[in-house]
């Protein structure tokens, strides 16, 4: 398989790859030393044994000759012990061949132990010696016993049978002696060659060990060199940035660092590196250099094109490493990622801002509240930026400041008309870096606060300009794009809401206003009365009704009736205070609410109105009068009750002849109710317009006109009448 043959590059496997050769070197040394010592020890031991063997072997020669002498001595009648000598000869011959103990050579009673003979030649010689000793001693015994030399053994293949007995003994002794000598020589030669072998082996071992060690060492060196080459090429081609900080600043900066900042590696050494590090990050780098902490951090470096690159770094504290003595920083350029993250975060923030702004504006149902939201939102966008919202009035001709940054003085844009504003005209946000540049908005020039930058965002609703959101900043430092987009979001949403609120207010105003008289309608008045009652504020309430309005209408037409209604409204409106309320209740009937007054004070006001009305008639306006009924908040607990009492007063005024003011009470109220119910009941039951003209009016105009119908047919009732 091809893969199998591929050798993996392992530049960082420092431990395992170098261990094998080193171990091999030590093992070689150990083996060679052990072998040398073992050889020496065995050689010395063998040598010691051989010395004994040589001595014993050599003694055989001497013993053979002595045996001959002793035989001859005994033969000549002297004292000798050839049998003992024969015994030693025989024992020694056996021991020399197969090993065993023999009497020691120096003649003491001690014994020497011999190893078995070793080597074919030597063993063959000892075997021959054994046989010769046997033949010698057999012959010697025959001589001693004077036996004839027949049937004597010739075990050693010697041919001595033809010899005379002493001659035969001498030859055998000589042969024994000769072979003993020869064997001793053989052993000696062995010893010598053993020693020579030992020397040779030791020299060979030494040389071999040296060669092996040298080969291993060179192999190791090659491996290390190859590893270094691998490592170097990896380090050089790596895009990772490697910086080593030590005493005196940067001690190493990889080629990749130099390439990033666009300088040479040597220029980065010492304090050179810091020139490229962002000012705010230098303290951090110094801390890393001195403490090796933190283990992970990020910093910025200026690249060759003058752009700040964000680097993410890991720290390896190798200050105690003798080879390095520094802090190693491995860094990666993460600028792209940081920027992407920044964009995402900003997007999220903007989305979050937009949704919170939307929610805030949703809760707004008045322009004033919307302005407040705009102010608070502006603070969120940029706390220290002066801001103002300039909005046009309903005529869309004049701009005025409706909101401004709460904590800082508003920028004070002097623009007066929406169409003088560049941003409004362009319909998009504009950014001016300097008020002094040629293409700056003329409104920015000559401000008391001096030159500035500005961001102006138009505020519009349904394509119609409402105004402008205006911010200023130091000259040359306009708000960043992020803030500008947030301002655009603010302007867009605020415009939408303010436009909606304005449209809503307009329709509300229309709905709550009587088109003919411009007065608020009955619902508004009811709301006001309820609000006063809820707040437990004292007030008086009056119901007014124009006298003989039906006749006026019938005689002079609806135009005249409408003019009368408008005149009455104007007269009353002029007479009232700001927080008094007059509402058209329906038909020719009005309700007047007078806060803080009791019914007696109210009567005075109403009398003045009656007089004003009388004075107001002039020209083509038909003369007419009005009747009033009054109640105050001390007379009842509910609006219905108070209105019913006031209605009673009105009923009484009508009964008493009209053009007057009457205080209502529960009795008159009951009478008015009774009269009204009869009329209303009649109308309701007949379901057809009754033949009576008043009935028709009552039907058409509802409850309000029933009084007129009722009291016109009846005589004035009793009641409290003023004037």
């Amino acid at each position, binding site marked *: 398989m091809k893969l199998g043959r591929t050798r993996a590059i392992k530049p960082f496997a420092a431990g395992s790859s170098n261990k094998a050769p080193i171990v*091999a070197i030590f093992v070689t040394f150990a083996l060679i030393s052990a072998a040398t010592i073992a050889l020496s020890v065995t050689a010395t031991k063998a040598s010691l044994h051989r010395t004994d063997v040589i001595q014993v072997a050599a003694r055989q020669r001497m013993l053979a000759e002595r045996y001959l002498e002793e035989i001859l001595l005994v033969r000549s009648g002297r004292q000798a012990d050839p049998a003992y000598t024969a015994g030693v000869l025989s024992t020694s011959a056996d021991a020399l061949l197969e090993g065993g103990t023999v009497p020691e050579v120096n003649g003491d009673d001690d014994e020497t132990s011999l190893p078995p003979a070793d080597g074919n030649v030597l063993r063959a010689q000892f075997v021959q010696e054994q046989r010769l000793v046997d033949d010698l001693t057999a012959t010697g015994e025959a001589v001693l016993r004077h036996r004839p030399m027949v049937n004597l053994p010739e075990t050693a*293949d010697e041919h001595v049978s033809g010899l005379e007995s002493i001659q035969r003994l001498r030859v055998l002794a000589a042969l024994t002696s000769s072979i003993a000598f020869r064997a001793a020589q053989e052993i000696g030669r062995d010893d010598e060659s053993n020693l020579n072998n030992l020397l040779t082996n030791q020299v060979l071992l030494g040389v071999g060990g040296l060669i092996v060690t040298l*080969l291993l060492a060179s192999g190791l060196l090659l491996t290390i060199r190859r590893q270094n080459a691998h490592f170097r090429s990896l380090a050089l081609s790596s895009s990772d940035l490697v910086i080593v900080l030590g005493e005196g600043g940067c001690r190493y900066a990889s080629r990749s660092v130099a390439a990033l900042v666009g300088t040479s590696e040597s220029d980065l050494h010492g304090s050179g590196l810091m020139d490229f590090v962002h000012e705010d990050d230098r303290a951090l780098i110094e801390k890393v250099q001195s403490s090796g902490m933190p283990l992970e951090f990020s910093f910025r470096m200026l690249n060759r094109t003058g752009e700040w690159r964000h680097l993410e770094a890991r720290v390896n504290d190798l200050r105690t490493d003798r080879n390095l003595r520094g802090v190693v920083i491995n860094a990666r350029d993460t600028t792209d990622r940081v920027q992407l993250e920044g964009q995402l975060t900003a997007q999220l923030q903007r989305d979050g801002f937009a949704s919170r702004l939307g929610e805030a504006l949703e809760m707004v149902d008045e322009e004033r509240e919307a302005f407040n939201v705009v102010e608070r939102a502006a603070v969120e966008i940029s706390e220290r930026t002066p801001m103002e919202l300039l909005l046009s009035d309903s005529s869309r001709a004049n701009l005025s400041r409706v909101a401004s940054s709460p904590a800082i003085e508003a920028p004070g844009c002097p623009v007066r008309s929406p169409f003088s504003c560049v941003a409004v005209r362009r319909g998009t946000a504009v950014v001016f870096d300097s008020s002094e540049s040629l293409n700056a908005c003329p409104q920015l020039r000559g401000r008391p606060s001096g030159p500035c930058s500005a961001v102006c965002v138009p505020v519009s609703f349904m394509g119609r300009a409402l105004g402008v959101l205006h911010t200023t900043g130091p000259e040359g430092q306009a708000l960043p794009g992020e803030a500008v987009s947030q301002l655009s979001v603010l302007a867009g949403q605020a415009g939408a809401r303010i436009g909606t609120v304005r449209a809503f207010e307009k329709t509300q105003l229309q709905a709550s206003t009587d088109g003919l008289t411009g007065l608020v309608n009955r619902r508004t008045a009811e709301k006001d009365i309820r609000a006063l009652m809820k707040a437990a504020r004292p007030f008086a309430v009056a119901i007014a009704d124009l006298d003989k309005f039906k006749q006026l209408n019938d005689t002079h037409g609806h135009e005249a009736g409408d003019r009368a209604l408008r005149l009455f409204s104007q007269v009353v409106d002029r007479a009232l205070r700001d927080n008094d309320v007059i509402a058209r209740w329906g038909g020719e009937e009005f309700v007047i609410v007078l806060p803080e007054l009791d019914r007696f004070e109210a009567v005075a006001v109403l009398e003045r109105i009656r007089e004003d009305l009388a004075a107001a008639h002039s020209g083509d306006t038909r003369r007419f009068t009005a009747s009033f009924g009054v109640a105050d908040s001390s007379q009842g607990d509910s609006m219905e009750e108070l209105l019913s009492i006031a209605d009673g007063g009105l009923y009484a005024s009508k009964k008493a002849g009209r053009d007057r003011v009457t205080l209502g009470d529960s009795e008159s109220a009951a009478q008015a109710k009774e009269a009204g119910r009869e009329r209303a009941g009649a109308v309701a039951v007949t379901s057809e317009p009754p033949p009576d003209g008043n009935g028709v009016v009552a039907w058409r105009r509802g409850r309000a006109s029933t009084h007129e119908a009722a009291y016109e047919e009846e005589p004035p009732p009793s009641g409290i009448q003023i004037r």
Partner: protein
Amino acid sequence: MPARVANGLRFLVVLWVIPAVALLSGCGSTGASAKTTPRVVGVAEKDFHISAPSTLKAGEYTLRVHNEGPTDHELIIAPSRTGSLPLRPDGLTVNEEAIEREEPGSLDPGAPGAVRDLTVTLKPGRYVLFCNMEGHYMAGMHTDLVVQ
């Protein structure tokens, strides 16, 4: 990791094999040469006997002497009209000095197992081949040779 170990082992094996081969080849070289001009005659010696042809034609011979042991033996060729040789006073060895001038050739004592060549020119006559190590002649290490 296994690859690395295997490499290391291979490396070691190679390192050990190189000197081993060098040792073997250094010790194992032997050369063989043979002179083939004279006729070769085998002679075997052992305790205490010599095996050799009893008759040869006159001429040059290479005696290939094989010592079959177990001890050292020498080979001396001496003319012997009577078939016996003079002894030294000790009665154990041939008196070589007395016959030296007439010896066609001799080999010094050789170790057991040795094979040695002795080139001799033999004239017609009676010869004795013998070993003169102490007592060997007396113990039977001699043989007669007749050259015609």
